[in-house]
């Protein structure tokens, strides 16, 4: 029982790629996200990614309709709209069923688990009971360990010397240290990422911020923290140096803390964060990476101040009911 190395989209990609390599699918067969997802019993997102990757590599092609088609080595074929199973798509071929199901479970619970643990962080130091976590989410210990491994990559939990997973406490000094790392690395990473950033994508991100600004404060905590993903993951981490990506990800606990603060304290009456995000995108769209990096640095510095204040304000809240797999533990 080791770490699950492959993401869900990778599993779907490999399965489809195997079918195409073995010519098990007729040329012209139309591949649509929905039907493929149904056959593999996953959500559409990993299928969408897998199809996009296959198309980037020329293994499937776009055509004059929705979805992708299996290419004809002899050139142009009419699109074939068939039931995929009948056409030869076998969900058991080129796939490890256990791995797939574990991965599906992982994807299903990871966001919920990350949020639950994140919400508890300010209230003390907690040991995570793997067995209870598995019961709570209805998944196996393998999946739990992978979830915890991913949380460790995000700086959300640590493995203590006696082999226990520890979450929290969220402290002012930890927040300062995470931001110190982020201020050093994220603006530089952003500059490196610039050549890989698509202007349409940036415009879409900028527009997402503008839409929330227009509705503010009629927004949810999920929507606000979703904006963080755009800037601090999709842009900043779009670099070739994967080791640097891993280091940055591990310093991004404050992004999880943002959700924690919003959930416990509510949506603040004013939030300069939106304008700060928008400014970074605008500089990127204008083709000014240095200005974008400077705006990102300023945003990070102000975010640190806000986080420290929110942590103090949170002191007036008593500890909420905690999930059964978290046990308060002494330092």
């Amino acid at each position, binding site marked *: 029982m080791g770490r699950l190395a492959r993401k869900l989209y990778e599993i779907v990609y490999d399965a489809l790629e195997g079918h195409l390599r073995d010519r098990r699918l007729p040329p012209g067969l139309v591949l649509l996200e929905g039907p493929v997802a149904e056959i593999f019993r996953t959500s559409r997102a990993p299928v969408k990614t897998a199809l996009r990757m296959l198309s980037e590599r020329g293994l499937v092609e776009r055509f004059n309709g929705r979805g992708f088609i299996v290419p004809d080595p002899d050139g142009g074929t009419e699109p074939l709209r068939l039931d995929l199973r009948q056409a030869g798509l076998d969900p058991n071929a080129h796939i490890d069923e256990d791995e797939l199901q574990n991965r599906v479970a992982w994807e299903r619970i990871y966001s919920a688990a990350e949020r639950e643990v994140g919400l508890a962080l300010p209230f003390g130091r907690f040991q995570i009971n793997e067995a209870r976590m598995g019961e709570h989410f209805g998944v196996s210990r393998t999946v739990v360990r992978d979830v915890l491994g991913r949380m460790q990559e995000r700086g959300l939990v640590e493995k203590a010397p006696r082999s226990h997973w520890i979450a929290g*406490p969220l402290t002012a000094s930890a927040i300062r240290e995470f931001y110190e790392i982020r201020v050093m690395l994220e603006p530089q990473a952003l500059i490196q990422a610039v050549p890989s950033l698509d202007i349409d994508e940036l415009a879409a991100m900028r527009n997402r911020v503008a839409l929330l600004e227009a509705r503010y404060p009629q927004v949810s905590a999920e929507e606000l923290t979703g904006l963080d993903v755009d800037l601090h993951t999709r842009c900043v981490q779009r670099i070739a140096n994967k080791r640097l990506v891993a280091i940055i990800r591990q310093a991004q606990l404050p992004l999880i803390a943002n959700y924690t603060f919003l959930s416990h*304290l509510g949506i603040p009456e*004013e939030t300069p964060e939106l304008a700060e995000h928008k400014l970074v995108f605008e500089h990127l769209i204008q083709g000014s990476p240095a200005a974008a990096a400077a705006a990102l640095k300023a945003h990070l510095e102000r975010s640190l101040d806000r986080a420290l204040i929110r942590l*103090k*304000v949170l*002191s*007036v809240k008593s500890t909420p009911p905690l999930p059964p797999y978290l046990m308060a533990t002494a*330092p």
Partner: protein
Amino acid sequence: MKAEADGLAAPQVNTRGKPVLRVLGTKVTLIDEIRRRAESDLGIRLDYSVGDGIEAQQRAATQPSSYDVYDQWFNNVDIVWSSGAIQPLRAARITNWAQVERHMRTALMQNGQPIGRGDAPIKYLYVQPDKRLGPHPTDYISALPCVHHVDAFGYRRRSIAPELAGEPESWGWLLDPRCRGRVALVDDPAIGAADAALAAQALGLAEFRDIGNLTIEEIDALTRLLIRKKRAGHFRTCWSSIDEATALMQEGAVDIESLWTPSLTALWSRGVDVQYAAPKEGYRGWHGCLAISVNARGAVLDAAYDYLNWWLSGWAGAVMARQGYYMAAHEAVVEHLSPAEWGYWYRGEPAATDLCGPDGSIVVRQGARRNGGSYWDRLSRIVLWNSSMDEHNYLVRRWAQFIAA
């Protein structure tokens, strides 16, 4: 609004049509005698909402629509300000501002630095251009400085260990094994921990890089020490109300405890021989202040400023002085105290006559002298202010573990 709901319920003054001012705070200042006089002097109706320190702060930070004036302390102000719950005050609207500013910038400073570690009030007084609070003067303040004092602990001279009685008073007595089983601390994470930290430092049981801003490791060490002491039976209890603190000492359940002035004067008026220490390490200071809710507007806002100014106009300061408290504009207070009162409470002179407390009973006998000297002497010996440290949230959680241990 309460005025309409109560119809023609008979107040002392007909306040029909006048604004009702809702004041949130604690028993320290929300006294009935003060409320009645303010209503009469100002022609408004006052609705006092009294909570313990923690409840009041919680409400202040999260429900600004539920009050108009928030009466608490400078170490709470930053949290409440940063939550956006209170509005900046125009110093120019404060009648006695010059006196107050003098007090803040001279009595409470030495060599250009605030006296005492931790949340010295001047650090949170002025609203800076970036909307944060700071010591650099601007036209706007976060809250009006008002009642303040220096705290230590109280003890029964005749009941504590004789060896201790012969030594100079020290914070260390609170944790001294010779007092085991006869000690109470206040159950407040910031203040109780501050008393404990001063005691631990005095006994050499702990060292703090900055006693006004403890690190995680220092909070852990202090908590471990307190839990160890608790399990060894050192603490009789931790009190969570002034009445409880008074009863503990009066009934002889403790010989030494965290003690605040209202308990002290109550005990004196009942003839209990309790001494308020002047610890050789210095005092723990606190500074009250009055803030206005972010939602206050129009007539309510005007009434709020009137109420704030009234507090500094002298009469309220005299009432507070008879309980042992000081006022930020003390020059206005002199006119409302008898020479004997001013001499005892502020100048540190022996009482020229018997002195009465707020309820009219005698609290100070002729000839008695306030331990620790004059107002100015005592202020200058503040070593630590009540504070909301960087790791305040962590301290709250660890303190709860001490209380539950």
